């Protein structure tokens, strides 16, 4: 039975990583969905392309958890846009996620570059 192609098969970020990236992006300034996507792409030198099918569910999920809040505002060229901003709870969450990420990447780095015993 052939399966239909799935859009999310393109790029898979680690589970939870997208949340971290969104929170980090919003810690600089409030931003709309399209802007968040562009900033993540720019700051990763085009390496990370966030899928809209992941971005918008993530935004709405973070909003429900009250880590970010949303309000309708006007963009630079006077378009009505939904702008997300980090809440105080979100700020604490970002700190926690960052330290988690640090631990995780250190651990992975440790596995990838083991400190081998020098004497035989």
């Amino acid at each position, binding site marked *: 039975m052939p399966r*239909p192609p799935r859009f999310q098969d393109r790029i898979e970020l680690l589970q939870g990583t997208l949340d971290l990236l969104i929170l980090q992006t919003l810690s600089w300034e409030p931003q*709309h*969905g*399209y802007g968040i996507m562009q900033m993540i792409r720019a700051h990763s030198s085009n390496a990370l392309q966030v*899928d*809209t*099918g992941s971005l*918008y569910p993530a935004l709405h999920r973070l909003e429900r958890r009250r880590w970010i809040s949303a309000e*309708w505002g006007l963009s630079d060229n006077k378009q009505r846009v939904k702008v997300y901003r980090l809440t105080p709870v979100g700020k604490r969450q970002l700190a926690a996620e960052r330290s988690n990420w640090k631990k995780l990447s250190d651990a992975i780095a440790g596995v990838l570059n083991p400190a081998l015993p020098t004497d035989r």
Partner: protein
Amino acid sequence: MKPLRWFWRRREEELDEEIQTHLRMAVQERMARGEDPATAAREARREFGNVTRVRETTRAMWAFAAVEQGWRDLRYALRGFRRTPGFTVVTIASLAVGLGGTATAFTWVDSFLLRPFPGVRQADRLVAIHAIDSSGQEYNRVSYPQYLAWRQATNTLSGLVVFNMGQMSLRFEGAAERAWVQHVSADYFEVLGVGAALGRTLLPEDERQAALVAVISDGLWRHRFRADSLIVGRAITLNGQGVTIVGVTPPGFRGTMMGTRMDAWVPVTTIATFFPGNASLTTPGWFWLTAAGRLRVGATAEQAAAELATMAERSPGTPIRRSGTAAVRPISQEELGKLLHPLLFGLLGVAAAVLLVACTNAASLLIARGATRTREIGVRLAMGASRGRLVTQLLIETGAIAVAGGVGGLALALAGRRVLGQLMPPLGVPVELESQIGGRSVVFLFVLVLGATLMCGLLPALRTVRADILPGLREGLGATVRRSRLRSGLIVGQVATSVMVLFTAGLLVRSLSHARAMDPGFRDPRQLLLVSTDFTLANVDERQGRAELTTLIDRVRTLSGVSEATYTTSVPMNLAGGLGGIGIRIPGYQPAAGESMVAGQAWVGARYFSTLGSPMVAGRDFDGGDREGGRAVAVVNETFVRRYLRGREPIGLEIEAGGRQVTVIGVAKDTKAHLISEAPEPFLHFPHPQSRQFWSGVTLIVRTVGDPTAMIAAIRRAFASVDADLPPLDPRTMHDNMASSFFVQSIGAQVLGALGAVTLLLAAIGLYAVLGQTVSQRRREIGLRMALGAGIHRVIRMVVGDTYRLLALGMVVGSLMGLGAGRLISGQLFGVRPTDLVAFAMVVVTLTVAAAIASLVPVRRATRIDPMTALRLD
């Protein structure tokens, strides 16, 4: 609901706007980079991905989104049902039948088996005590002396009570009527844990002193005493004795005999006062009481049985029938409970099987419907709907159908509350079986609905959604017609079961109509009124009883509107009642080895045969001259003459019956004593005044000129004028009484008829589902053939051909099963053979008509296929 819907719509709109803004910004940025507008729009769109999917997955993040989604699916489903009312009604009907049957059976099990004794504390710790004699025969009664000894000695039981139920004559401000009274030991209520709602229950001194006190039931208090709150201390008359009411039981309490109505309780020791000459209290060998004990905490039924057995050995003065042992049984399986236990669990099993078939049918229908929706589903999948969402939606549709079916099922269960009581044979006890539909039944039904939803919905939903997108869009091009072997087997099974059940029901219906048309051996049973009574209830001795009976029958004979009147101890064609057999010796007849020389007996009044309208075959009827002290006479029946006399002249013959010499003075026609299906047996009639012992229970037979029921009031007055405590019991016509002799056929025909209707309905639904599926799946093929010039007959054959072959196979299998079942019930058949062709033809016609009706819609749909539409690929 309005504000909520507005809220959700706004959120949807906002999400749409958010996505649109996103796209617009992407396009603007691309154009700023120098792309032309068309390319920019296309590329932005491609980069964004599937809008529907993004919208759907995002929406799933909202709180309550699931609930909201469910609500929308439900509305969508209801819209769909409105478009296909036939499918909807048929599926709901199928499930309602299955769910209703199972729910009804469960409410019965719940009411009568799981909570058999409402109001009784820890009823599961109560046990019935049986005596077992040395030969292993088990008796469910004990004697009073035995009970007293056991009550003293037991360590395993924290309480031991006895009870015995019988009818008594109750008089209170008016004529005597019947009451069902239990003689109980004084600790009965205490051991059961039942207090008094008014007044008190019985006390130990009531039993010791044989006090004339009574505790009445809530039902009697409400119906007979109009819930009089000052009832305690009032006097009533039971069997002619003044009795003081000391208490009323709580509303829920119904005694400890399952399904039996109880009006009052009196101390067991009063039996001799109420029934003069009754020595059962003091006779060690008189086993008449049901014993029930409460197991002490920590004690098991086995320990109790062992203890009672050793006690029986140690106390020779109170023997268990020739020294034996005791057995301890759950009290819920006494009397009616013993009958109901296997019956109800069997019923629940049958109902569950019906539910299973009903669910399979519903699943077939859903698969058929799914097949017609391949395009819709395909389009929605292509638009980006996830399979999980679609499966949920299809399940919600099935759920809606199952809930509707469940509501129908609940209605059936409500309607069936009293049915079980009506199905009970006349047992000589006041049967009162009304099931309660409690919380447990509702929860059970809910679980059933849920289970049914998953059972009939999941497979069709998965199957529908699994359909690949492209073939779906191309409208079933190249779709193969697969006929599952399981479904074929199911059709054959359903048709076969239906044929078998309908055939046996048909045999019983035909027996019943033969029974109704049969000559009962007497004239015009609708004009005969029967009124029973028992002189022991009036608390009179034998001499007085005989005198009262003579006065009563004389007074009834002179009533205007009465043409003739007599009485008997044993009403013919009456299921319950009658006397045992009487031993006979006939001069000149040598019994074969092992032949039992016992004949049926009835003790009757003067002009008995004339009142019945049964002409004498030979000799004369009883008359006023056949009285006590006169020549002992008897009237025999035709079978007696045929079997024992072999052509000898019966009139004037001297025979021995019950140790007396009697002269045969007449020969009467054969009548059935109890059951319509019984073989004729030798029968003897004697004049009632000549009996050695006074038969106190008699039934008056009154032939009336006009409407017999109009005479009941006058006959009641005649009773009261003879003895105020003599209750007229069960007035009914002979015609109604005869119905009890074919109650087996009647109940069998009703139950099997209902079951037959259900199986027929299910089989028809099954056929309808399979045919509908065939039409949907072969739509294009049919269109093609029509375009190539196939006639309408050809099309019909294409649709029904395979299925009708299954139908024929099912009918053949069912007929064979029916022949077997017919042989099994051949003992209950009357005037028909188990291979009755008329019943068989009835079944074949019924099934053919049902199959034709079931095919009507699918065939019409097939013949109306427009070849152009069916072939177009669009």
